[in-house]
């Protein structure tokens, strides 16, 4: 209250000073005092009122019609005052929501966190970065008792909170499956039924599920409409698309999937990704899949985790550090 009345007198003094000197310094002071008014939530109508008081002090015999016109201005400012208060309130609310989402995002991260399993057979690297606070991409690792490694990578269409919520559903459905008794195609078929029953008609999920079995040295995989991954043949130094057909999860309850297999040799790699990687845009231009491959090729000789980090950094820079879509990239490298 004290600073308020102090400011009030300051304002009146400043008006007086300015009427006399009309110099820039006083106008600069006016700017400063306006800032402190805003900080103290002084509303525009109160400032007009102050101004009227100032006028009356400077011109004791201020004409009635001028006074009336100032009162008119005051009246008109009331609505602006209300709009200002409302704006303040909405801003506070926005901050509140933002921090709530942040808490939810942290929870999501904790719930869905999937550590890279320790295995002698594979060098695994993964990076998953949300475009906004909540990630709509999902990846999951499972290690079976026989040493097999299961990897799921999924993209929930739609962004933000609804996507994040359906992801928890996927995770808990997968956790309930009997461990490594299932082949990749039956895993997708079971998930499909869960998703189909539980999501909004305009939602669906794409997923690529892969299983590496060290005893056979083979990768088994199935795709539910997911962006194809790549197979890197170290011997020929070539990349091939991991072709796999299958309908996205959540569209048709009776969908069945195919299981494919691929023999991996030492130093061969498997690259799994979400369309946030291939849908990177540079200004208005799209990046072609071949270009993505070029970048991956450049880093494929690095240890898996370093490679995914470098690829991410490349595309992050390309998009001016503003991801348009969630970005997830997994690299598996056979090391023995």
């Amino acid at each position, binding site marked *: 209250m004290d600073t308020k009345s102090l400011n009030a007198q300051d304002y009146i003094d400043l008006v007086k000073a300015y009427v006399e000197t009309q110099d820039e310094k006083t106008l600069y002071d006016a700017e400063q005092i306006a800032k402190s008014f805003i900080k103290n939530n002084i509303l525009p109508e109160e400032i007009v009122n102050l101004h009227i008081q100032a006028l009356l002090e400077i011109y004791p015999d201020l004409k009635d019609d001028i006074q009336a016109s100032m009162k008119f201005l005051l009246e008109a400012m009331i609505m602006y005052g209300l709009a200002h208060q409302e704006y303040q309130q909405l801003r506070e609310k926005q901050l509140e929501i933002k921090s709530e989402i942040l808490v939810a995002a942290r929870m999501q991260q904790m719930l869905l966190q999937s550590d890279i399993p320790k295995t002698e057979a594979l060098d695994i690297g993964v990076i998953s970065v949300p475009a906004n606070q909540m990630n709509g991409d999902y990846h999951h690792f499972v290690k079976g008792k026989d040493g097999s490694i299961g990897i799921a990578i999924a*993209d929930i*269409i*739609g*962004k933000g909170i609804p996507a994040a919520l359906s992801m928890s559903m996927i995770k808990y459905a997968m956790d309930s499956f009997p461990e490594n008794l299932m082949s990749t195609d039956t895993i997708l078929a079971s998930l499909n039924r869960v998703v189909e029953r539980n999501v909004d*008609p*305009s*939602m*669906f999920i*794409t997923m690529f599920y892969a299983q590496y079995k060290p005893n056979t040295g083979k990768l088994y995989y199935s795709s*539910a*409409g*997911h*962006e*194809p991954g790549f197979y890197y043949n170290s011997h020929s130094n070539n990349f091939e698309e991991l072709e796999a*057909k*299958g*309908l*996205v999860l959540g*569209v*048709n309850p009776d969908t069945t999937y195919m299981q494919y297999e691929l023999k991996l040799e030492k130093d061969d790699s498997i690259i799994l990704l979400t*369309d946030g990687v291939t*849908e990177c845009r540079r200004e208005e231009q*799209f990046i072609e899949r071949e270009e993505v491959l070029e970048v991956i090729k450049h880093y494929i000789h690095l240890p898996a985790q370093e490679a995914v980090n470098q690829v991410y950094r490349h595309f992050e820079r390309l998009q001016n550090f503003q991801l348009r*879509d969630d970005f997830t990239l997994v690299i598996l490298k056979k090391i023995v």
Partner: protein
Amino acid sequence: MNLQIHIEEGNDKSHVHLSGEIDVYTAPKLKDALIPLTSKQGNTIEVNLEQVKYMDSTGLGVFVNALKSSKENGSKLKLINLQDRVLRLFQITGLQEIMDINATIRGVNE
């Protein structure tokens, strides 16, 4: 980031011409236009995507929704003239196999 939707409605056939981009921002508008058409029994809805140069997965979601709605309500949904980039999305997701898609493929640079 804009989408124009032009609808010509006949007796039991609706032609929908789309032009622009179908993404997270324009998808709701497309959904509002498309779903009511698919809920009319016996209606055939032909969606011309010739002028759609970009679509993301949210856009696919709208077509999945429309497909489900047309099955429930006994209408037919047909997509025509898809550009390569858009067609690729339907191919990857396996939706091409369960949807009526007539892609007189046109280049992106057209």
